[in-house]
Every structure is written in structure tokens, then in C-alpha cells.
């Protein structure tokens, strides 16, 4: 295709999208001259370019639309009818462009219907608000003739002449008169059509030169090359690891850093605002509201949230479909709304935001909500569930049936939705990109659909596992935890008939043997009872994948599978590992299917669904009793082990209770004086360890492990107790492990101990990855800090602005939306944080980064995995603080 034409097509299609959106906005806000100017300019440009490229049909259409819009500009009233006609014209132009793209020729055909409608409206308005142009004409007009009849959109020479005379004359320059001066005359309100709108574009070229248009193929190719580079780098690193002392190490490290940065930059070029996928929606909603006779307001939030364009492409259609659904099924008619005491106008709210490595898109409406009864009836009619099954299900699970294939709740099938290829297709599309859809609905108040999708498909973090002698990659995002199982121990696989399950914290986890699922494993049941279980979550379903071995995690470049392999549901793609071999990437969705949808108990599913929203804020807590009937709790993540030991094994030495434990002496500390170390029977212990040291807290009884939000409501004066919180509807004392550790070993941590009055230093920990947050928070706590862990810089700043002060801040550098550098600057810029020391955490450790970190005002820099280094850095900062104080 001609380069010029191709560029024209891309540009025009983009312009038309904007026109679509802007026109709808304009209709709602007809006095906004800015929007109109923008629309007018775009249409004008299209018209001009069409004329230039010799596309008369398009030029004629655009001209007619432009004329009508010109009238708007002159003050004609904006009617819905007129906007509809213009929108129809835009659609026609798009159709013609599509043909043009395929055949490289403008299709035959007439658009007299539209042009007539447009002209009619323009004339109507002309009658209403008639300007008197000729009044300004000065001088004699010589009638001029042209050799051919005028085409639509062309201006007669007479008019040109007039326009020229009306235009403010460029006095200083003696411009040649008459037709040649058509271009300068543009500044008059009359728009000639002879040339593309070059000069109109001029003010923009300065902005435009900041960015250039790059062919998508080029970008894709660049991405592929970078992927190759990443792989090659991984291979080199692997080789260097095997050699103890190699002169390649230095340069290789540099290569590695550069590659990582390159990868990041290229990934950035693929990022696009999610708003691009929303562009069509205002128009869709406008048309729908006319078609359905409903009043609908579309709110859009977070349109600037960026995600990979590959992902963007995949969610465009599902999003449109879901918005249609909300408008059609969700929102009521104006009368119904009034009857229900709601405003006549229904609202559909689209919002997008980042959360961890995901982007969340919500489609919420304030309509009638999902009709649980109807869904139930339909599920029974379609044979998806029985009445008794449904009776036992929580509402949220019943609502999920709308995602079942061929499920449509629309009582009457409209042209808008309800054709039976609805939500299941949506779910499918989103599944394909590793995302999930959830629905929450309250009858009478509306529904919220939540789409959770990965930011990018190209590079993911994966856990490499082995099953049946082959290695596979499991996307890290789906993995909740790893459990090691062994025959004849507590952690073992049990069977209900032939179904393998695992008892995991008082719940039954359905299991699937990967080797057997993939027909790789011919071994008998008995011999496979030791191995690892990858606890995996897909949507609200949790299950375990039994594998033979677990290696490590690796950043892998996802490559699409060959078409010949795509039918295998268990895999989502393949990749090349650092050692050069190809391995398959497991698709947790596909495996979940194999596990079967029945295996997750309804109760578990509903609990998970309810938890999903607040998962972040929840902590696993160990409940126990010690010295009083009132329960006490400690965050489970701090506890290394729970032990029940025979009381007679506890020895008393030098006034302290000691226990021989795993080859060393472990001190026993009582939570309070009311706890009696038993002399016979068994003693319950909570074991805490850090490196080589272990200590145990003696308690009366271990009660339970619960997941709950840990918010200490009443701080405590009593040493060793952080405060009280409501856990499982009971007031519970949260114990302060940091208080007990130094009792066992006086030097457990010096920094914390020096703070005699029990005033623990407050530490703000900002890290976007939940994994690192969970990993490091206990470390920081154990180092004697009162830790506030947050997922992003914005939240941190909000706290600061709310008047909270911290003694020290530890922040990740690489975070979405607000990175560590920006955060450091913001903290130091705020009065509550001006001299707070900040320690940077990063996975990048090049000298350049370190230099940048120092420059940005960080007090220290620690590599992400360097636990010891972090504690040391904290000690150093604390020591300085102590001196200052």
C-alpha cells in the first residue's frame, strides 16, 4: 500500500474515534466551544486530506458534516437529531475507509441520503440564524467563470474573492491577489477545500515532533529481539555462575543491567492508556440509551492507567460487551427507577487502576442488580445445577452462573445483548490473557463486575517445577504457597476414594497430580507420596498441584504456542529458559478445569470471594491462651514452628527454663507470670527463630489459626502486649514478639533494646509486591520496629499528610505510579518527613543506580534479598538517630 494512504488511514481512523467521543460530549455540553473547535478541526483535516488524496466520496461526506458543524459554530442550536446524523456520517466514513484499506480504492456508491440530511439541517439553521456576509464586501465583484461545474465542497471563485477581501489584509507583504491567495483566506470563517489543512496543523507540529508514529510490526519485532536478548543474557549468567572466577563477570553484570533497562524501555513503548479501549464506549452508550429509552450516564475514571497493548486489544470487546450488558440488563427504565426511588438517570461507572502486577477494571452500575431467582431457575433449566445444590450455595456463587456457556438471563432478547453468547465469551477472552472476572451484586442497588488482568503478557515471573521427568513453568502470580509433603508425616497426601487431598491449616485442599494429568507419570499411587504441592489460586478456586520437584523462580519471556498445540488446555505458552531449553508454561486455568469445579467446597469459595476484597489487609494470626482465659494472638508469619513437648524434657538451669531442641539449648520464656511451665504432660510452645537462634514462648493452649484484619484498637501499657484487637468477635491481646526476644538472648537486637521505655521506633515500609511485603515485614518487626507496611507511595504520602510521623522509612525503588525516588522526594518535601532517614530497597544494584539513590536523598541502599544488610542498615540509622536524640 502507498505509504501516504496508509498513514492517512491510521490517522483518520484515530481522528474519527476522537470525533465520536467528542461529539457525544458536545451534545451534552453544547456551549463548549473548545470541543466543537476540536471536532471541527478534525473533520476539516479529514476532508482536506481526502481532497488531496483524490478521494471524492469521502471528501464530499466530510464536507457536508463539516458544513453542519460550521453552523453549530455560528450559533445554531445543537439538536440530538443533528448529532445523530453527523455520527451516522462518521460511521459511513469508517465503512468507506475499511473498504479503502482492503482494496486501496474508494468504493463506488452514493451518500446522497446522508448529505441531503446534513444539508437540510444546515439550511434550516441558516434560515434561523442568517449571517449577512455580502454586507462587508467592499469594491466591485467581477463575475468569474470556471471551466467545469463546482464539486461539492468547492467554493466558487466569486466566494473566494469575497473571502479574500473580507480577510484582514496582510498589508506589509504585497501578496498576489485573486485565486492564488485562497490559502491565506482560510482565516476567514469560510473553509475552502482545495488543499489539505496544512496550516491548521502547524500549531500542533511542535507537540507532535515529541512523538513519532512507529509501525506496530517494528515494535513487535523490537520486543522479540529484546526477549531474545534477555534469554541470551540469562544463558550467559547461567554459564558465569558455573565458573567461579571469571573475568567476564564484570562486563556481564553491566550487560545484564543494560538488558534489564532496555527491556523495561521497550515494554514501556507497548504500554497504552486503557482509555484507548474505552474510546468507543461513550458512543455505544449514547446509541444504547436512545435505543432502549433509558437515560444513562457513563463515568470513566482512570482512563490514563496504562497496560500492554496486546492485553488492551484483548479486553476491548469484552469491555464493550459488559457495558452493553450493564445498560441493557443492569439499568432499569426511567419509570422503574423513579418507582424505586432512584434518580431517573442511571449511571455506569468504569474505573481502572493498578494493584500489584495487575490492572483492575471495574464496570459498575446502579441498576437493579442480578436477579438471583432468575439465575437459579435458568441454571436448573439448563441443567447446570440442581435445586438442592443451589439452595446450599451462597449468592455470590449463584451469580457466577452468568459466566456459564450459553447462559442468558435476559427475559427478552434485545438487539443489544442477550443473544446467549454473552458473559461466557467475556470470561473466555479474559481467561486467555490470564485474567479473571468477578461479579458482586446487590439486588436493587446494582452490580460491579471486576476484571483483573496482568499488566503485560510478554514477560512474567514463573516458578520452575518438575513433574514426570519434565520441567514446567507455573506463573508466579497464581502461586499462593509451596507445601512439602512426605509420607508418614503430618503433611501427607490423603485420599477420599481416589481423590487426593491435603489437610492445610484445617481445610481440605483438592489436589491434582501434574504428572498424571499430563500422562507423564505411570508410577503407582503409593510411590508418589512425597514431593511438593504448589498451592494455586484461580479466581476464587484454590487447589494444589502435586509436583516432584521445585527449582527456582525465573523471569520468563512468554512465547505463544504453535497453533498445533493450542488445543492443550493445560498450557498457556512456552518459553526458553536460561539454559537454552524450551519448557511449557502451565495454565492454572486449564488445570483448574481438570481439578473440576466441584472440588472446591462452596463454603471455601464464598469465603475466598468475601476475602478477596480485603485480602491485602488481612493477617494470619495464631490464637492462644496464656495465663488468662482471654485469647492472645501473634501474627503467624513471625512464628517459626508450633511445638508440643513433654514437660519433663524442660530443664531448669540458672533460673531459666531451657529445652534441648534440634541440637541446641533453646530458652523458654513465659508470656506472663501467670503462665506456669508444666511439670508433667505436654507443654505448648511457640518457637521463634532468627538465623541460628531459637526461643520458645510457653503458652497454656494453642487455640486456632485465623485470618483477620489486624487493627489494634486499644494500645497497651503492659510490656509485651502491643494492644487489643477484635479477632473473631472477641477482644484479643496481640503480643509483641519483639519484647520477648531480648529476654531470651540479651543481644538479640541491640537497636531495639536500647529503646528502654518500650517506645519502639516506627518504621514505614513501602513495597508494591505483596510477596516482599510479607517476607520483610516480620524481619523488620523482629528487628524491633513498629512496622507500617504499605503497597504504594501514594498511600504512604496520605499517611504522612494525615499527620503520621515515622522514625525511619524503607522503600522499594521500582513501584508503579509512584516510584521510590518520587516518594523520597515527596517525604523529604513534607514537614512530617523532612529529616526522616529513608533506606532504598532495590533489585538493581548497578553503581549508576546507587549514585542516583544517594542523589535522591536516600540515606542507605540495600539489595532486595539482603536481609542481613537491611538489618545492619537499620541499626546504623537507628544509632545515628539515637545520637541525634
Amino acid at each position, binding site marked *: 500500500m502507498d505509504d501516504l494512504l496508509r498513514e492517512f488511514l491510521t490517522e483518520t481512523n484515530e481522528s474519527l474515534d476522537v470525533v465520536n467521543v467528542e461529539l457525544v460530549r458536545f451534545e451534552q455540553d453544547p456551549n463548549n466551544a473548545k470541543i466543537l473547535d476540536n471536532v471541527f478541526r478534525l473533520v476539516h483535516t479529514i476532508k482536506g486530506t481526502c481532497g488531496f488524496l483524490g478521494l471524492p466520496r469521502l471528501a464530499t461526506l466530510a464536507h457536508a458534516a463539516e458544513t453542519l458543524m460550521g453552523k453549530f459554530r455560528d450559533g445554531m442550536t445543537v439538536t440530538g437529531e443533528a448529532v445523530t446524523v453527523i455520527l451516522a456520517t462518521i460511521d459511513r466514513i469508517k465503512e468507506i475507509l475499511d473498504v479503502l484499506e482492503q482494496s486501496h480504492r474508494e468504493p463506488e456508491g452514493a451518500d446522497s441520503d446522508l448529505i441531503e440530511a446534513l444539508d437540510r439541517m444546515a439550511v434550516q439553521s441558516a434560515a434561523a440564524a442568517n449571517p449577512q456576509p455580502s454586507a462587508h464586501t467592499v469594491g466591485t465583484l467581477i463575475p468569474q467563470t470556471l471551466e467545469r461545474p463546482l464539486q461539492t465542497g468547492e467554493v466558487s471563485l466569486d466566494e473566494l474573492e469575497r473571502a479574500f477581501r473580507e480577510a484582514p489584509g496582510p498589508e506589509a507583504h504585497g501578496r498576489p491577489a485573486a485565486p492564488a491567495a485562497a490559502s491565506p483566506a482560510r482565516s476567514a470563517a469560510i473553509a475552502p477545500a482545495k488543499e489539505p489543512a496544512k496550516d491548521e496543523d502547524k500549531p500542533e507540529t511542535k507537540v507532535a515532533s515529541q512523538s513519532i508514529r512507529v509501525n506496530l510490526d517494528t515494535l513487535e519485532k523490537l520486543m522479540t529481539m529484546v526477549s531474545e536478548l534477555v534469554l541470551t543474557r540469562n544463558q550467559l549468567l547461567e554459564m558465569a555462575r558455573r565458573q567461579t572466577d571469571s573475568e567476564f563477570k564484570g562486563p556481564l553484570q553491566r550487560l545484564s543491567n543494560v538488558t534489564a533497562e532496555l527491556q523495561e524501555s521497550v515494554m514501556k513503548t507497548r504500554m497504552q492508556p486503557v482509555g484507548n479501549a474505552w474510546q468507543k464506549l461513550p458512543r455505544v452508550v449514547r446509541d444504547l440509551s436512545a435505543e432502549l429509552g433509558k437515560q444513562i450516564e457513563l463515568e470513566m475514571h482512570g482512563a490514563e492507567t496504562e497496560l500492554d497493548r496486546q492485553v488492551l486489544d484483548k479486553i476491548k470487546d469484552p469491555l464493550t460487551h459488559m457495558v452493553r450488558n450493564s445498560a441493557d440488563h443492569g439499568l432499569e427504565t426511567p419509570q422503574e427507577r423513579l418507582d424505586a426511588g432512584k434518580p431517573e438517570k442511571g449511571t455506569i461507572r468504569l474505573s481502572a487502576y493498578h494493584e500489584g502486577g495487575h490492572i483492575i477494571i471495574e464496570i459498575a452500575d446502579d441498576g437493579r442488580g442480578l436477579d438471583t431467582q432468575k439465575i437459579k431457575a435458568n441454571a436448573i433449566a439448563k441443567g447446570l445445577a440442581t435445586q438442592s445444590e443451589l439452595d446450599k450455595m451462597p449468592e455470590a456463587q449463584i451469580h457466577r452462573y452468568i459466566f456459564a456457556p450459553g447462559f442468558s438471563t435476559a427475559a427478552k432478547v434485545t438487539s443489544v445483548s442477550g443473544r446467549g453468547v454473552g458473559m461466557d465469551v467475556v470470561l473466555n477472552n479474559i481467561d486467555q490473557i490470564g485474567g479473571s472476572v468477578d461479579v458482586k451484586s446487590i439486588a436493587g442497588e446494582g452490580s460491579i463486575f471486576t476484571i483483573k488482568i496482568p499488566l503485560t503478557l510478554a514477560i512474567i515471573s514463573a516458578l520452575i517445577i518438575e513433574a514426570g521427568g*519434565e520441567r514446567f513453568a507455573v506463573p508466579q502470580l497464581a502461586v499462593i504457597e509451596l507445601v512439602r509433603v512426605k509420607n508418614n508425616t503430618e503433611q501427607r497426601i490423603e485420599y477420599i476414594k481416589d481423590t487426593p487431598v491435603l489437610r492445610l491449616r484445617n481445610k481440605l485442599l483438592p489436589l491434582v497430580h501434574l504428572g498424571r494429568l499430563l500422562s507423564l507419570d505411570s508410577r503407582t499411587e503409593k510411590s508418589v507420596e512425597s514431593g511438593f504441592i504448589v498451592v494455586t489460586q484461580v479466581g476464587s478456586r484454590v487447589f494444589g498441584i502435586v509436583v516432584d520437584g521445585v527449582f527456582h523462580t525465573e523471569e520468563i519471556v512468554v512465547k505463544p504456542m504453535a497453533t498445533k498445540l493450542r488445543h492443550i488446555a*493445560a498450557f498457556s505458552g512456552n518459553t526458553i529458559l536460561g539454559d*537454552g*531449553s*524450551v519448557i*511449557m508454561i502451565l495454565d492454572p486455568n486449564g488445570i483448574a478445569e481438570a481439578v473440576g469445579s466441584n472440588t472446591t467446597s462452596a463454603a471455601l469459595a464464598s469465603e475466598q470471594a468475601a476475602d478477596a476484597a480485603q485480602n491485602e489487609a488481612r493477617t494470619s494470626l495464631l490464637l492462644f491462651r496464656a495465663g488468662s482465659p482471654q485469647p492472645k494472638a501473634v501474627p503467624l508469619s513471625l512464628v517459626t514452628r508450633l511445638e508440643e513437648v513433654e514437660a519433663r524434657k524442660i530443664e531448669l538451669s540458672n533460673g531459666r527454663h531451657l529445652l534441648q531442641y534440634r541440637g541446641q539449648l533453646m530458652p523458654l520464656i513465659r508470656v506472663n507470670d501467670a503462665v506456669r511451665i508444666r511439670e508433667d504432660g505436654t507443654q505448648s510452645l511457640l518457637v521463634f527463630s532468627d538465623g541460628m537462634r531459637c526461643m520458645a514462648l510457653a503458652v497454656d493452649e494453642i487455640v486456632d489459626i485465623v485470618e483477620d484484619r489486624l487493627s489494634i484498637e486499644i494500645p497497651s501499657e503492659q510490656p509485651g502486649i502491643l494492644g487489643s484487637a477484635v479477632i473473631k468477635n472477641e477482644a484479643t491481646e496481640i503480643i509483641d514478639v519483639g519484647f520477648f526476644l531480648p529476654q531470651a538472648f540479651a543481644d538479640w537486637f541491640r537497636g531495639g533494646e536500647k529503646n528502654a521505655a518500650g517506645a519502639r521506633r516506627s518504621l514505614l515500609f513501602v513495597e508494591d509486591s505483596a510477596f516482599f511485603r510479607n517476607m520483610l515485614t516480620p524481619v523488620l518487626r523482629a528487628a524491633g520496629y513498629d512496622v507500617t507496611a504499605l503497597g504504594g507511595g501514594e498511600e504512604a504520602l496520605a499517611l504522612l499528610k494525615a499527620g503520621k510521623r515515622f522514625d525511619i522509612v524503607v522503600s522499594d525503588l521500582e513501584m508503579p505510579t509512584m516510584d521510590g525516588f518520587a516518594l523520597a522526594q515527596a517525604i523529604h518535601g513534607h514537614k512530617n518527613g523532612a529529616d526522616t532517614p529513608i533506606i532504598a530497597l532495590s533489585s538493581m544494584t548497578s553503581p549508576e543506580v546507587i549514585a542516583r539513590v544517594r542523589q535522591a536523598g536516600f540515606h542507605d541502599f540495600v539489595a532486595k534479598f539482603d536481609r542481613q544488610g537491611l538489618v545492619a542498615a537499620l541499626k546504623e540509622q537507628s544509632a545515628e538517630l539515637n545520637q541525634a536524640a
Partner: protein
Amino acid sequence: MTMNDDAPENETEYVTVLIGQQLFGLPIERVHDVFMPGNLTPVPLASPEIAGVLNLRGRIVTAIDMRRRLGLPDREDKSEAMAVGIDCDGESYGLVIDSVGEVLRLGEQTREPVPVNLDERLARVANCVHRLEHELLVVLDIARLLDLRPSAKAA
């Protein structure tokens, strides 16, 4: 691709390969390279013709076991197999064969239609047969060769 392998008056160049004693021809312009299919990763649950996937200079290549594809018995000695690299619809495939022969330029005069009594599995992927001096060469149709099974294609 400017060359047309079926043009009657033109001669066509074929890469000849040996699969289970039989000589086959692949249009030379479709053949990218010839390589040893080392470090093959099997793909569980894939159709039996798929020998696995492998890394060929950073590209993931799907290897197809030609013996299985043509309904011939499996090779006993897998170590010395060769593969012919081809591209189809933007994806890379490796046809695993016994050995690679020479390049032949063949014209219309030796060309014969596929015999009607040929084994159905072979006939489905054969384009024509050329009468060579000492043996017969079966020209394979790459598109049909890669059309493993309708269900897989639809998926």
C-alpha cells in the same frame, strides 16, 4: 515468494529427504535450514506426530516426527535424526526426518500424479510423484503436511 512449484513449464528445485527408505521432495524455497533436532522437549498431551519443541537460535520450533506423520514405524536409533526447518503462517516447524539428500531440479517430463492406490495417509500429503532414474520421489505438500488434524486446527 516468486517461484511457483506447480508451474508446468518451469523446473522446480526440491530438497530431497529420506524418511524410512522412501525419498521425498520438499520445495526448496520453503526450506529455511537443516539442523540436528537436539534437546527436544516433549509436549505432553499433544498429538503423537508432535515430537516436541526445541530452541533453534532463540526461536521455538515445533518438531514434527515425519515417520509418525506419514504412518511409518518409529526409528529405532533416534540419535542421528535430522530436521528440516520450515515456516508456515509465521510459525516455525522442524520436520524430523532420517537424513537429507541433495537438491534436485525436476521438470514436467518426470512428473506424475499421485498413484490412486497410494497409502491414504501418504496420499493426503503428497502433491505429485517424480520418476527418477533409480527411484521415485514423492513431493510433499507442506500446508497439508502441517494440517495435523481438523480438531486441532479448529481449536
